[in-house]
């Protein structure tokens, strides 16, 4: 028998549970979902409002003002980030200025500190980049931001630490009042309690009506959001609100505690309490409204879109208090904005109600106010990081590269009192999957770790609630007698013929290469060929080879080796050569930063955290896939949505199928290859959907992966909706117009359980940015010269980090140049140090002309050319029968007839030194000149 049962483990339920845990009471917290913080708490703006908005005399006013006052201590005790960033409510007209005056007066009457009406000039000084018509603002310095998941999880863990029983996956399906006692029906078990706190959020009306006549209805109001990549936070110094209207506070622009920009929400009343899908119209509305505040918001940096439901009632205020009909049954309902800000004050108030009813039990003699530290590894200082790795080497193993989350943190999140059991649970607690790759790289490893720690097989790991399975079955399982041969035992340990791992802990190195994929390996070999002895390759995976290891199909090496190899074969040839050359490698090692003066900070479980100074650096980190989140495909967010490369990793490396009825979105080569792979492993591919009028992949892949298996390819189609709550259940597709936009009225449904996104690759340049390297807008990679040197001296780059290649052979070719270039650089520096003067010659730039999207390299120093150079280019659009003309300052120096050029296939043009004019010139222009047979 419990003294009190709290229903709902969102921010309110957990805060109440923790507050009550201070007293001698027997408590239970019941959550219907697989994890805490899974409803409204999961998807909101994360703002702690200053408290001037709510009308006098309301619970909202009382609790918001009080909550805001105690938030610092609340978060400090729980070790959860909270920043008082301040907020601006911005007026765009004289009329709105009047509203601000009223809000100012209202706020002042609540004694909210520091409120100030800002006039135009001061406003634009404090928040640069606002639209011109912003004429004033109400500044509230006490407004702030927190992380609602971390806060709720910390509250739950602290409640558990202080004796509260927490049951997840435990919906309350009925409540019976038996005398003074409530009997709660929970998944077949009965929980008896003297008092019930109904903090069931969107479902609070259902719970209320289990014992009481209807007295309120929750009308879910959906709000949609954009979340932008880390680093975009600089676009909002303050939480930026428009002037509030009858409908609410409006679309805000704010920086999260983690440094992301968040934009939203709109407000749309919806029928279903599960309608957490995004919509094209809703997102467009959010964007339009946000751009009324600031025009120049970086929407190209969106990493995901999501929506949340607010638990609105018609009351206009929170509904908090004991039911008139049922003594001891306390509703805490209609907790919409400012619910998060009010939570600590609501918790105190509700706890007092219960305490009074319970005859004022004594406080516990021992209450542990603090939760365990939740500080992320990356937020620790260097000394703390080292200490942590010394204690537990799993903190030296970075699993999530976007957010630099270590295996140690993931294991800690699983082992903690209210531990993570799902992929989303890990993401909420430690953020892998919350970064720009949206779990594309780390998802498979996180699932392995979860399975290992929980003692289950990977297919048993869910994304969130029951039904949200991620993997179906091991590949080859029919033949492998049904046993789970894909289990992870030992799968993360030994390796093949890798070069000996570097045990040295030097403070300096002649050449450091970041990335041990095809680019990094070729660069290392080329530098060694030119006499550089002291080379170190740093690779984040446990083996060299990079993405080639999962590309088990053939088609590699036709240019380099004049034979057709598979990805792993191509990789192994290079790995063997690195071994022969005795080139040092650090595997399972993550580079955290590279500085402009070539200091590289890395972490691994053997060396801990170290900084090494390099004579030259070669960046070879590769690229990542464009995700569903960054594309903003509307719909729900169930399990079963993968980027094609992530699915490839699951199927080819881990040996698990990702689904049975698959749709591929995008017709790039990875998508086509994966379509065939799914068919070959016994799955069905329902369709490949391509927005353009042609297939983007190689013709060979179209014939051998699509046509051979009769897979429908729907050209000029797009996905306009994704359906399914836990797992994908289907999609809505529509025809596209010439701008690749959906045509209304052409929608139709397609049933599927899996969607693979094959929508292109993005060079991964986070480290390049940390080194101050200039990136080119057309390629997304560093600006480089003919030696692949970036604009930062001594820092080179090659492979997909520079621009996305279609063939690994070209990556190898280009990376040899980077290796040679770095070697030349190192030698030149040595000569210069010895007093020798070297004439650098002149520099010309390359310029893409008509029909050419980009050219790599961007700059050429003819004096440094190694006999000849290759220009790597991509065409803009599809061209047949054209002349590719290369001009040096308008003088035609080379012309090549091209039967066909398509954006999917890289154009390679060789320029010999003798092709170039001897005298100095400024520019090499490449353009397409239409021939007779043109279309």
């Amino acid at each position: 028998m419990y003294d009190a049962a709290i229903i709902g483990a969102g921010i309110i339920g957990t805060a109440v549970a923790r507050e009550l845990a201070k007293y001698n009471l027997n408590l239970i917290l019941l959550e219907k979902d697989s994890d805490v913080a899974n409803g409204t708490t999961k998807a909101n703006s994360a703002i702690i409002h200053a408290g001037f908005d709510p009308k006098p005399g309301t619970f909202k006013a009382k609790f918001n003002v009080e909550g805001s006052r105690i938030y610092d201590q609340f978060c400090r005790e729980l070790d959860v980030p909270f920043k008082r960033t301040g907020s601006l409510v911005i007026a765009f007209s004289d009329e709105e200025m009047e509203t601000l005056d009223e809000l100012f007066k209202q706020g002042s009457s609540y004694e909210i500190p520091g409120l100030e009406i800002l006039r135009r000039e001061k406003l634009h000084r404090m928040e640069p980049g606002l639209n011109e018509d912003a004429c004033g603002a109400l500044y509230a310095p006490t407004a702030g931001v927190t992380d609602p998941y971390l806060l709720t999880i910390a509250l739950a863990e602290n409640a558990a630490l202080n004796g509260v029983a927490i049951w997840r996956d435990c919906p309350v399906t009925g409540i019976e009042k038996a005398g003074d006692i409530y009997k709660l029906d929970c998944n077949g078990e009965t929980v008896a309690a003297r008092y019930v706190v109904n903090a069931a959020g969107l479902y609070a009306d259902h719970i209320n009506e289990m014992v009481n006549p209807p007295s309120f209805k929750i009308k879910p109001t959906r709000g949609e959001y954009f979340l932008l990549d880390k680093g975009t936070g600089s676009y909002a110094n303050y939480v930026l609100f428009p002037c509030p209207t009858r409908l609410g506070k409006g679309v805000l622009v704010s920086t999260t505690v983690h440094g992301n920009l968040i934009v939203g929400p709109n407000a749309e009343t919806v029928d279903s309490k599960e309608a957490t899908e995004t919509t094209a119209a809703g997102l467009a509305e959010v964007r339009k409204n946000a751009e009324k505040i600031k025009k120049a918001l970086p929407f190209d940096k969106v990493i995901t879109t999501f929506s949340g439901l607010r638990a609105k009632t018609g009351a206009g205020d929170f509904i908090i208090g004991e039911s008139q009909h049922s003594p001891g049954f306390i509703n805490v309902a209609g907790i919409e904005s400012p619910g998060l800000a009010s939570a600590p004050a609501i918790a105190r108030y509700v706890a007092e109600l219960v305490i009074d009813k319970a005859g004022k039990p004594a406080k516990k003699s021992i209450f542990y106010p603090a939760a365990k530290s939740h500080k992320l590894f990356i937020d620790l200082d260097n000394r703390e990081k080292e200490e942590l790795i010394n204690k537990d080497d799993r903190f030296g193993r970075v699993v999530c590269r976007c957010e630099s989350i270590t295996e140690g943190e993931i294991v800690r999140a699983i082992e903690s009192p209210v531990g993570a059991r799902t992929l989303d649970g890990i993401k909420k607690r430690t953020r892998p999957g919350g970064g720009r790759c949206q779990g594309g790289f780390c998802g498979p490893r996180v699932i392995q770790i979860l399975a290992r720690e929980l003692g289950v097989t990977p297919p048993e790991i869910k994304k969130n609630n029951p039904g949200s399975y991620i993997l179906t079955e091991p590949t080859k399982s029919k033949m492998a007698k049904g046993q789970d041969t894909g289990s992870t035992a030992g799968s993360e340990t030994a390796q093949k013929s890798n070069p000996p791992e570097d045990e040295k802990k030097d403070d300096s190195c002649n050449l450091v290469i970041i990335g041990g994929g095809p680019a990094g390996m070729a660069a290392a070999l080329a530098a060694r060929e030119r006499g550089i002895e002291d080379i170190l390759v740093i690779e984040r995976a446990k083996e060299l080879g990079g993405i080639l290891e999962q590309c088990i199909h053939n088609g590699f090496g036709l240019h380099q080796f004049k034979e057709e190899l598979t990805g792993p074969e191509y990789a192994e040839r290079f790995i063997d050569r690195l071994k022969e050359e005795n080139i040092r490698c650090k595997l399972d090692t993550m580079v955290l930063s590279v500085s402009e003066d070539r200091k590289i900070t890395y972490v691994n479980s053997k060396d801990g955290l170290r900084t090494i100074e390099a004579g030259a650096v070669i960046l070879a980190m590769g690229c990542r896939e464009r995700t569903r989140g960054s594309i903003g495909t509307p719909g729900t967010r169930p399990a079963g949505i993968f980027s094609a490369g992530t699915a490839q990793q699951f199927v080819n490396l881990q040996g698990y199928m990702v689904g049975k009825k698959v749709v591929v979105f995008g017709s790039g080569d990875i998508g086509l290859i994966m379509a065939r792979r799914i068919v070959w492993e016994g799955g069905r591919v329902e369709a490949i959907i391509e927005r353009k009028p042609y297939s983007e992949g190689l013709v060979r892949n179209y014939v051998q992966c699509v046509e051979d298996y009769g897979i429908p390819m729907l050209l000029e189609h797009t996905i306009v909706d994704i359906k399914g709550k836990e797992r994908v259940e289907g999609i809505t597709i529509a025809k596209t117009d010439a701008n690749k936009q959906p045509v209304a009225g052409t929608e139709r449904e397609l049933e599927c359980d899996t969607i693979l996104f094959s929508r292109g690759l993005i060079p991964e340049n986070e480290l390049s940015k940390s080194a101050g390297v200039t990136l080119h807008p057309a390629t997304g990679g560093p600006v480089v010269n003919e030696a692949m040197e970036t604009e930062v001296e001594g820092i080179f780059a090659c492979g997909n980090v520079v621009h996305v290649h279609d063939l690994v052979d070209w990556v190898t070719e280009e990376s040899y140049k980077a290796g040679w270039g770095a070697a030349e650089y190192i030698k030149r520096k040595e000569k210069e140090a010895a007093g020798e003067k070297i004439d650098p010659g002149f520099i010309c730039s390359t310029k893409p002309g008509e029909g050419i999207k980009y050219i790599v390299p961007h700059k050429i120093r003819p004096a440094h050319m190694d006999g000849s150079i290759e220009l790597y280019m991509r065409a803009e659009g599809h061209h047949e029968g054209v002349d590719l003309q290369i001009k040096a300052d308008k003088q035609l120096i080379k012309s090549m007839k091209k039967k066909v050029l398509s954006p999917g296939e890289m154009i390679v043009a060789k320029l010999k030194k003798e092709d170039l004019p001897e005298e100095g010139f400024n520019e090499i222009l490449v353009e397409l000149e239409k021939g007779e047979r043109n279309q």
Partner: protein
Amino acid sequence: METKEMICILCPLGCKMQVRPKPGKTSELSVRGQKCGLGIDYAYDEYTNPTRTVTSTVVIHNAPLPRLPVKTEKPVPRDLVFAVLDEIAAVELTGPVKIGTVIKKELLGTDANLVATRSL
């Protein structure tokens, strides 16, 4: 013999070709639709005996990864692809295995061996 429609895979043009035996000469083919001569040999092969290289994985125990990538050393007749995949699915190995190791000889009576495409 029937006319077969096929797409030439040799360049990004992807010419749609119509291939059929020349009237009265079963060994000679009429190839139409190509914009150059490169695809004619391909059209002959694809018409008379289309072949494909099969790449997949096999179950491996006692190795750092649970699956070993494999390929048919030579292309196999296209009609045999699924039968070859069944052969591949029946394989269970124990590591270590060296790249190039022949895992199954002369698959289904063809001249193609199944080989490991990495060391594991």
